[in-house]
Every structure is written in C-alpha cells, then in structure tokens.
C-alpha cells in the first residue's frame, strides 16, 4: 500500500440521484438519532458506484454534509479503506489478487497480462475502459489465480484467458464470470478424488457426476442430513 491521496483533478460537484438519495435516507434511518455517522461507509460506497467507481472530493464533502460530519472525519475513512478508490478507474476495474496462493499459481503472469492488455498499474487505459490494480486476498484461493472485474470473479486464469476476457469486454461482449478453464465452481480440478465409492450413495447407482463431487441437487445425493 502506498500513501493515498485525493485525485489531482476533481469534478465540479456531486449529488446523489433521487433514487440514491431515497436509499441513503433509508440507510440513515437505520441508526439511532445522533448516530447517523454510522451510515458513512454505506453512503460512500453508493457514492463511489454512482461516480463511476471512485470517490471524488465533492462526493466526499457531499456525504459528509449529508451526515453532518466534519470533512476530515470522512477523509480519514476514505483514506483508510482501500475499497474506496480515490483516483478515477476504468469502466472495467480489474482487481488482481496477488496474495500467496494466487501468486504461487501465476498471479505475476496475470499482472504481466494486465500490463500488456491494459497498461501500467493504477492507470486508466486510453479508451477509458480499463484500469487494474493489485489487491490482497479476495478469498477465492481454490480457484487461483483470479481477478475481480467490477462485481464479478473471473477464476482459474491464464494470461491468455485473461487477455481474451479483456479483449471481449473491450468489444462490448458479455463474458460470463467464474472459472475460465471449464471447471465447475470450486470443485477439484482433476475430478473427484474423495467420496468416490458409489456404494456410499445407497440405492442410487448413478454415483457422483464426473468431475464433480456433488450434484446439482446435493440433498438427494449426499449422505446423512445436510
């Protein structure tokens, strides 16, 4: 992590859309009288979403005013939580997991692919569509290496598959999230290696589906209460 500062170039102003403002008022109401500052993270997050993925200085002030907080208090919060982007990001914001399991599985190559297809870290590509950064563990270690693009996880990546995702997104195509090597969810990559004895599944002779330890309806196949 490095020193986080507000962006040098800032938009003129910021205001919630009427829908977001209604939503914000509802969130504020969740907290007791005088404790409205508790809503600050929810509101900042919504402001970031509305603002195209980053918190601008006017947005920061807008949220502070909405909650009757001192600007410095909100400033403290946005500089602490790295989920708040203080610099503009691309339309597709790629967060590359660089923590140990991903790193061992080739996160360095994934970063190299990002550099190749998007550009240097933390800079928006020329077409404004992409930017990427490295983040700490996103909790999908079993599918390492992986990235998060906006709200979705793209897992089991290779530099080539990530490159293709980026290029398809660039063309405006829909790219389904999840494992990119045909794997189902986070099932073992090499097919089932435990609970493979068909006998344990009682009268049902079919056994587990190939490549997947469970079934689409686990309750019917799994032994004992689930």
């Amino acid at each position: 992590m490095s020193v986080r500062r507000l962006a040098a170039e800032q938009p003129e102003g910021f205001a919630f859309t009427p829908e977001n403002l209604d939503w914000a008022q509802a969130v504020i109401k969740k907290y007791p009288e005088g404790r409205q500052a508790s809503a600050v993270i929810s509101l900042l997050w919504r402001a970031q979403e509305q603002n195209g993925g980053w918190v601008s200085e006017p947005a920061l002030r807008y949220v502070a005013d909405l909650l009757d907080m001192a600007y410095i208090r909100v400033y403290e919060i946005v500089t602490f939580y790295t989920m708040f982007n203080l610099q503009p990001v691309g339309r597709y914001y790629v967060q590359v997991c660089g923590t140990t399991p991903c790193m061992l599985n080739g996160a360095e190559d994934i970063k190299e692919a990002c550099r190749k297809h998007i550009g240097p870290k933390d800079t928006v590509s020329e077409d404004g569509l992409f930017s990427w950064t490295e983040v700490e563990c996103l909790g999908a270690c079993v599918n390492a290496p992986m990235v998060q693009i906006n709200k979705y996880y793209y897992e089991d990546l290779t530099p080539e598959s990530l490159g293709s995702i980026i290029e398809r997104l660039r063309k405006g195509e829909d790219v389904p999230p999840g494992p990119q090597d045909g794997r189902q969810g986070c099932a073992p990559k090499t097919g089932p290696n435990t609970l493979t004895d068909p006998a344990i599944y009682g009268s049902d002779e079919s056994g587990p589906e190939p490549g997947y330890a469970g079934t689409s309806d686990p309750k019917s196949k799994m032994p004992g209460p689930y």
Partner: protein
Amino acid sequence: MPKIIIDDIEYDVPDGITLIQACELAGVEIPRFCFHERLSIAGNCRMCLVEVVGMPKPVASCAMSVNDLRPGLDGTPPTINTKSETTRRAQEGTLEFLLVNHPLDCPICDQGGECDLQDQAMAYGFDEGRFKDNKRAVEDKYLGPLIKTSMTRCIHCTRCVRFMTEVAGVQELGAIGRGEDMEITTYLERGLHSNLSANVVDLCPVGALTSKPYAFQARPWELTKTQSIDVMDAVGSSIRVDSRGKEVMRILPRINDAVNEEWLSDKARYIWDGLRTQRLDRPYMRKDGKLTPCNWDEAFAAIADRLKSSSGAKFGAIAGDLAAAEEMFALKMLAERLGSPNMDCRQAGAKFDPSLGRATYVFNTSIAGIEEADALLLVGCDPQIEAPVLNARIRKRWKQLEGHFPVGVIGADVDLTYPYVKLGAGPETLAEVASGKNGFAKTLKDAKKPMVVLGQAAFARPDGYEILALGARIVTERGAIDEGWNGFNVLHTAAARVAGLDLGFVPGEKGLDTGRMVKAAGTGELDVLYLLGADEIDVAALGDAFVIYQGSHGDKGAHRADVILPGAAFTEKEGTYVNTEGRAQMTARAIFPPGEAREDWTILRDLAKALGKPLDFETLRELRAKMYGAAPQLARLDTLEPADAGPIVKLASHAVAPEDSPFGLSIADYYLSNPIARASAIMASLSAMHADEEKATGTDG
C-alpha cells in the same frame, strides 16, 4: 478505594483512575507519549507498558483502570511491577519501534532539549539502533501561520487530533491513511481555525509540530524562565515568559487549574514579537508640531508648564486596557492631587459602577465554577473570541454533561464550539427572559446552578446600566443566586478593567467619563488629557487638548500626543492585574524596558514631584501598602473570594427601559485589539489570513 501494590508497596488509590495515574500518585514515573490527563485515552503509543502480575502480557497502563484488575490467587491486591525485567524490555522494545521511523535529527530540531522522545530515549531506550532499513519520509503539512510541521518526526500519538477535537472543539485535524502510512493533517491542508490551535505545539511530544514564528530562534537551555500572567484578555492565564538577554523569545502556558488549566490562547502565546517593535524607548515632546526626542526632565517640565495655565477641573485621565493596578492607582492619586474628578478606566464606555458593589462587575461563578453549572445564558458576548480559554472551559462542561447543557445566546451570531440556541439579538429578548416570557427562562429556572454571562457588547452602550439591571433581575428571579452559588457573571475583555474598577478609577463627583472627556477635549473644555496606555479612543477627536501619552508602544495615542512618556510592557514590570473573576495576580519582570523607558509607577511618582505635588510614596512597597489600603482584595494574590451578592439583588429592582438596538460584537478584530497586538507582525498575519478567508467564504468562520 481499591488497593494496589506498586513496586512492592501497597497503596489505596481512588476509584476509576488508570494505572498510570496510580503510579503517578505513588511517585513512580511511567514513560508515555499519547497519554494526557486532559485528553481522552488513546492507548496507541504503547510506551506506558507495565507488568501486571498474572497478566499474560504487559499492560498499557494508561488504558487500564485500577478497578479492572483481579487480586492474586492468595488474595493479595493486584501487583504492578514498573521496574521489572518484563516492564523494562517492553518499554525498550516500544521505544525501539518508535525510533524506527523517527529521524535522528535532534541537532536541527526545535524540540531538542525539551523533547519527550529525546528524554525517554535516554532514560528507557537502547544505546544503539539495530535497524538498518530506510526510514519513512512524510510530506510536511500546512497548519496555518503559527504551527511549523516536520511530519517525518511524528510518532502518531494523536494528542493534537484529540486536543483539536475535544478541547478546542474544531474538527479539523485528523489522521489519514491509518496504518503504516498514517499522516496527521487537516482537510486538504486548509490550516487550523481555532484561537487555541497553538496548544498542539506544547502537546506534541516530539518535534513534529513546532512553533513557526519561534523556529530556530533559541534553544530551551539558553532561556530565562519567568512565571507571569497574561494580559491579552481578562482571563489572566498563567504564563511562562522565556527570555534571552533583553528579548522575550516566547511565551508558554503554565498549569493553573483555577484559570487556564494548561491552555493558552494563540494571541497570548504569539504576542511576543509585538514586544520588540514600535516601542517607545525615550521621552518625546511636540516642538513646532513635530514629535522630537527629549529627556525626562524636559518632558516633565513641558507638562508642568502646560498644567500651570490650567486647572484641575480641566485635567482628565484615561487608563488603557493593559495598565497595571499600581500605575492606575498612582495616576488616580495624581489626578486627585490636581483636583480633577475626570478619570475613567472604561475605554469602551461600559457602564460599570464600582459603587454598586464588586459583585456587579466580576465573573462571580469563577472560571472553575463553570464546571458546576447546568445552564448558561450568554448575553452580548463571544467567549470564543473574547476569552478562548474560558470558552474551552464551557465546552468542557458541555462535554461533561454529554451535551445536556443548555446554552442560550442573546446577541450577534457567534461561532462557539458547542451547540447553542439563539434566543434573540437585543435587549427585548433579554427583557423577555427576565419577565419569564421566553422559554429559556424556564430552562434557567429548572437548572440547579444556572449561569448568566454578560459581555462588553451589552454594556458598552448608552443603556448599559439598564442591561446590567436586567441581567441582575434574570439572575435573581431565575434562582441563579443561592447559598454557595452566584450565577451573575461579567466577562471583561481587558486585563486592566477589574483592577481599575476595584480602585475606583471612574469619574468622581461631577467627573467626566471616557466619552465625555473625549468630547470635552474636542470642544476645549478639557485642557490636558492623560492617556495611560489608552489607544482605543477616538484620538482624532481630541481637538487642541494637550495630550500626555504614557505607554509602551507608539500606537494611535502616542501619535496624537504632545508629550510621550515611555513606559514598560507587562513583561517588563511587576504589576498587579485582576482577572475577570476578580482574582488578583501579579506579573513578573522577565526583561528590562527598552532604552530610557521606565516602570510606569516611577514615571507618575517623578512627574508628580516635578509638578510640585509629590505623591505619598517613594517605593513600590509604599505604593502597594497605600493601594492595598484602598482595595484590600488586591493584596490577596492568586486567591478568589466570593463577592457579596447583595448588590445584584438590589440592582435587580432597578427600573428598566433599555433601547431595542441589537447587541454588536465587542471586539472588531481579535488579533488587533491592543497596542502590543497591533505592533505584532504575527498578529497582523493572522488578522490578514482571517480577513482573506472571510472575503473568500462570506462567513465569519
């Protein structure tokens, strides 16, 4: 009272204190950086770790209450070892980590010689460093013209953040990038906007926040320390004047729980450069319309010459805001010798009358007494400007009561540091509260210890006396005067005022007050006007009167004067000042007056001799003996005795018919309110900064 064993000795300690305070009571010093008695507990520096027997790890003694410890298995009281190997290693380790990112630039750091980190590294640290890595560097921040920053030195104790938020009541400082990259800053480096901001310089345990005007001026061991009293406002904060040779190098607060706790307003702290400039260092007299230097005898002769062709009734004397009791008493004696009843110490024209009784012009509740009050009405005053330290005390009370401290304001819109209800702008509202028509009257009535504070803006107007009576009526009828409680308070803005009123430095029978003296001088009814440091009057309106100016600075009064008698500033004489509570205190001489300037009482003594009307004292001792005879309360230094509340009750029955013009503000420009402040470049820069911001934002913030 929990029992606790500290270093093998058993103590009974008060409930609810922390281990660090218990150790302090036991006379054991625990090193600390973030802990401060008057701020909330942060517990983030970890320097105060001690071993508590039975605890798996060393405990931060600043954050652990004595009530939260369990006794030993055999029933022995909780045991703390502050000198054990565990404690020593814990403290050494903490210090080593603190020094990892702290630059070892003590030789070029202004804090050197009075630095907590330096001292504690000597006492508790290793003799050498073991870290070879690069140190962190942090950009310096702009915190206004008073505070210099070297943020690489910051150890993130957050004392400054807590002070600004809790005591000064201004949420401007904060810690961004909390974690390894934590930095202390204001929002977008906009500077601090508080009249107490420079206290963070004292609080900073390292050299991260130092005094900008004092930067690289002196080392603490070169300075002579003199304990004195501040005169920039009527609070009379306890100060320490640090001087080197013939110059005051800086002013720091002293701890005085009854008055300023340990805070000091920015103005009182940074007035020192004004003590060096614009000084009157020799007598002057006007020859052919031009002020020319002369010697003392010539100056006295000129005055004697002018007085010969005048009469006592045509002599007037006005005492300024910074005059000490001694010289006012001497000037009063001189005026009486000359047969003049024309004298006044109320430059702004506030309608106080000492003959009514002392309770009608002092802050009866006392500053420490604010911490007992449970409702407050502010009338025509802005304590945040007029007495920043006193305002911090009100805020402290507001915090103690967790916000359940109703504050009503009658007067101009002010920016206090606690919420208040604006009741109205002028005497009408005051009359409504007095008659019970206003809702706040009930609040005051329901409160057990209500306070009413009347400011100078309420008195310095033609109907000031009526306002005073209205205030007295509110206080008596709302039950603010009771056994052991007097809620009638006058907040003065000038250090000299209460002493002047105590001494009766007001017009005698058929005497003229300040306003009428100025007018009479303009029309020629007054021949000679003696200004004792009085600059806040309209000097252009003095007509052809012969003006004698005695004072320390070449300000408005001196420019108009016909004879200038150079006097001493408050750091250059032993003078008695009475603060707004009625507490007599004495300044001490830190340095000598410049050039031929003299202590003011000697000037008046020698002038009287030259006029052939010697005063009946020769030494300061004799003068004080006479003065104490006239006003015995001045002899009881540093003590406060409650004034008899009787006069307030009597005043309450006075028929009331105030005007309906709203109250204004008593101080137009806080930073330029007296001759010393007007000579100070630092004050001028502060004044300019605030003027710019007002222009930019259109507010008074």
